C-alpha cells in the first residue's frame, strides 16, 4: 500500500512544463485568495493567507524557480504542502491531476546546476509523451536562496 502513495504525484503546470509533487506532502489545493504581504520576507514569499484559522505563508513558485513572473489568474492554484512540520502554500499556474509514476519511469535529474530550478529537481518522470519534473520539496523549502 505505501509504495502506491510513494509513486503518486500531484501534477501542476508552470509556464509550459509539467511538475509533480509527491502526494504525501500535499495537504490540499486551494483557489487563489487574498493574502497579506509580509514585509522583509524573501521576495518570492507573496504573503500569508488564512486557511481555516491557520496562518500559512505562500510562495510564488515561478519566482522561486527563476521563471518569469506572471500575474495570478483564474486558473492559478495554491498547493498547500507540508514537509517536516513546515507548511507552505505554493502558487502554480494550474493544477490538474494526480498521476502514478512508477520508479522505473523516473530518470535521474540532469547533473548540471546552471539554473535555479534544477537545484530542486528530484527526477524526471515520464508519462506517455509528457515529461514531468518531480520537485524535491525538502530542498525547495529548506534551502533558503
Amino acid at each position, binding site marked *: 500500500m505505501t509504495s502506491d502513495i510513494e509513486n503518486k504525484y500531484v501534477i501542476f503546470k508552470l509556464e509550459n512544463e509539467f511538475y509533480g509533487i509527491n502526494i504525501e506532502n500535499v495537504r490540499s489545493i486551494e483557489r487563489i485568495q*487574498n*493574502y*497579506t*504581504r*509580509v*514585509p*522583509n*520576507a524573501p521576495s518570492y*514569499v507573496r504573503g*500569508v*493567507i*488564512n486557511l481555516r*484559522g*491557520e*496562518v*500559512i*505563508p505562500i510562495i510564488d513558485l515561478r519566482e522561486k524557480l527563476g521563471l518569469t513572473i506572471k500575474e495570478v489568474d483564474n486558473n492559478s492554484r495554491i498547493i498547500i504542502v507540508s514537509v517536516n*512540520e*513546515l*507548511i*507552505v502554500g505554493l502558487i502554480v499556474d494550474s493544477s490538474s491531476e494526480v498521476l502514478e509514476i512508477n520508479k522505473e519511469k523516473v530518470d535521474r535529474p540532469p547533473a548540471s546546476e546552471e539554473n535555479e530550478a534544477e537545484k530542486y529537481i528530484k527526477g524526471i518522470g515520464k508519462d506517455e509523451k509528457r515529461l514531468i519534473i518531480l520537485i524535491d520539496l525538502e530542498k525547495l*523549502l529548506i534551502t533558503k536562496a
Partner: protein
Amino acid sequence: MDIDISQYLDAFVEESKEYLQNINDILLNLEKDTGNKDLLNEVFRVSHTLKGMAGTMGFTNMANLTHDMEDLLQALRSGEKEVNPEVIDILFECFDRLDTCVNYISENGKETEEEHTDLINKLKNILNDNNVEISKDESDKHENKETLNEYVLNVIKKAKTEGLNSYRIDISLNKDCMLKAARAFVVFNTIESFSEIIQSQPSAEDIEDEKFDLDFSITIVTKYKKDEIEKELSHISEIDKIEIVPIDISSSISDIEKEPDTNIKNTESGAEQKNDSKDHKNNSPAKNIKIGKTVRVDIDRLDNLMNLVSELIIVKTRMEDTSEQSNKESMNEAIEYLERITTSLHDAVMKVRMVPIERVFNRFPRMVRDLSKELNKEVNLEMTGEETEVDRTVIDEIGDPLIHLIRNSLDHGIEHPEERVKLGKSEVGTVKLKAYPDGNNVVIEVEDDGKGINFSKVKSKAIEKGVLTEVKAENLSKEEIIDLLFAPGFSTADTISDVSGRGVGLDVVRSKIESISGSVEVETQENIGTKFIIRIPLTLAIIQALLIKLKNEIYAIPLSSISEITSIHSTDIRDIHGQEIILYRNKTIPIVRLDKLMDVKEIEGKDEITVVVVRKGDRQAGLIVDELIGQQEIVIKPLGKYLCNVRYLAGATILGNGRISLILDVNSLF
C-alpha cells in the same frame, strides 16, 4: 513486551513527575527533620507507588532502582538504619536519576538502557554497611518477590498443614494463539474447577487485558496430584507447554529462601522472562512515541466550559429564530448575549490553560540546597505566591531564566558567612522568590540580601572587555551600567566557577524573557541586596493590541508595550546625525518610520503625524503610523517555521473579516 503502552505513557509521565516532586519535597523536609517518621513513611509510600507504576509500564530498570530505594527506606523506617546526610544524599541521587529516567521516557517513549547498577550498588552498600544480615534478606526477597509474597507463603503453609499440595504451573501458550486472554481464561477456569488459585503472574487483571506475552504462571493449592493436573490441562488446545512444579515448604517460612528447589526454579524463570522480554524489544521496531504537553485541569473549570458551550448553543438557536422574524431588537439582544458568553468562554479557556507557578518554583529549594552546599554559603530560600497562575506556555519558558537568576544571587549576591558577620548581617543569607499577579501581568521577583551590584566593578570590567571606553564610562548613568550586565558575554565574577562566570547569564535571561514579551528590571543597593523583577504577560495566546494602518495594510501593536499615542507636526522631527528624533515631554525619543521599515510603497509626506510611543524597559521610541484603527483583543497565531526569521514581526492575527494582520515585534525595533 508486546503490549501497546503508548496510550498510558502520558499519564505515566505526568503522574511520575508529580510523585517525584513529592519525593523531592519530602526529602528536603526530611533533611531538616531527620527524625520525622511520617515523612519517611510518606516517601516510602510514594516510591512504592512509583515502583508499581514503572513495573506496570515495563520499565524494569526504573522499577529495579525504586525497588532498592524502597529497601533502604524500609530499613530507615524500621529504625535499622539512621537518617544521616550520607543517606539523604544517596536518596537525592536516586531521585535525580529517576527524574532523568522519566524525562528520557517522556522524550523517547521508552526506557534508557542504563541499569543503574552504580546507584543500586551504592544503596546496597549503605544497607550492608550497617547490617549484613538485613541486606542479604532484602536482596533475597528481591529475587523471590516475583513469585512468592508473604500472603502466598502463608496460604501455602496452611495448605500444607491441611494435607493439600501446592504447585506452580507455568503455562506457555502457542504463539499462533489468537485470543490469548480468552485462552488464558479457559486455563484459569479449568484450574479453578479443581483447585484454588492463590496467585498468578502476571496478575489476573493483566491477563484478562491481555497484558502478557505467551507465558504466565499460576500458583495453586489443590488436593490433586501433579499428573492429575497435567491430564486436566492437556485437554486445552493452543498450549505449547505446561510445567508443573510442586512448591515445597517443608522448612519454616522464615528461611523459605534456603529451599533450593523453588528458589532456583524461581530465579531461573525470572531470568527466562527477562530474556524473553528483551528479545521482544529487539524484535519490535523501536516505536518513537512523543509526549505532548499536558495540563491537569480542575473538573470545575471543565464544567464551567461545558456550561458556556451549552449557552452558546442556546444563543445560536435564538439567533436562528430571530433571523426568521428579522426583528432587529431581539437580534441585538441575542448579539449582546453572545458577546457576554464569548467573553466568559475566553476567560474559562484561559483558566484551563493556567497552571500554578509552583510547577516552576518547586524545583528551587533543592537547587538552592545543593548550590549553597557547593559554594559553602548558608542560604535560606523564601518563596511566596507559588499559587499564582500563569499560562502553560509561559511556565515552560520562565524556568531557565529563574534558575539563572537564583544561581546569580547565590554566587554573586550572597556573601560567605564570615564576610556577612563582618558586615553585621545574619550569617544566613536570604533569597526571596516572590510571584504575584499585577493586572494582565505576572510579576516574579528574585531578591537577595547580598552585596549588591558593584557599579565601579562593572564599569572596569566593561572597559577591560572593550565594551566601552573609559571616557564613556565616566558619564554612564546607573541604569546604563545595569544595562551592561545584560550585554552578551558579560560577567563580573573574578573566577569562573561551576555556578556562574561563564558570561552566558543575564543576556540569555533577558532575551528569553523578552521572547515571551516580558521584561526584566533590576534594583540594587550596595551591601543591602539586589532585586530582579520579571514581568511576564498572563497569557501568550490572546492579547490586547492597537490596530494601526500603514497605507492600506493593517498591523497590530501589543498594547502592553505602548506608553502613549500623540500627534505631532512634521516640523517637530529633527535630524541628528542621521537619526530622527523628537522632543517629547522633555525627553528626546528616536523616531521610527514604520512605513519605511515595513517597505510600504508610495510613502506620502503629511504635516500632521500620528506617533505611537512604545517602550522597552525604560527606553522609548516613537512609531509613525498613518492611521489608528482602535484597540482590539487579538489571538496570536505564529507565522510558522518558514517565516520565523522575518524581522520586526512577532506573529500574525486573524481579523474579524478573515484577513490576516501582522503583529509588530516592538522589542526588535530598538
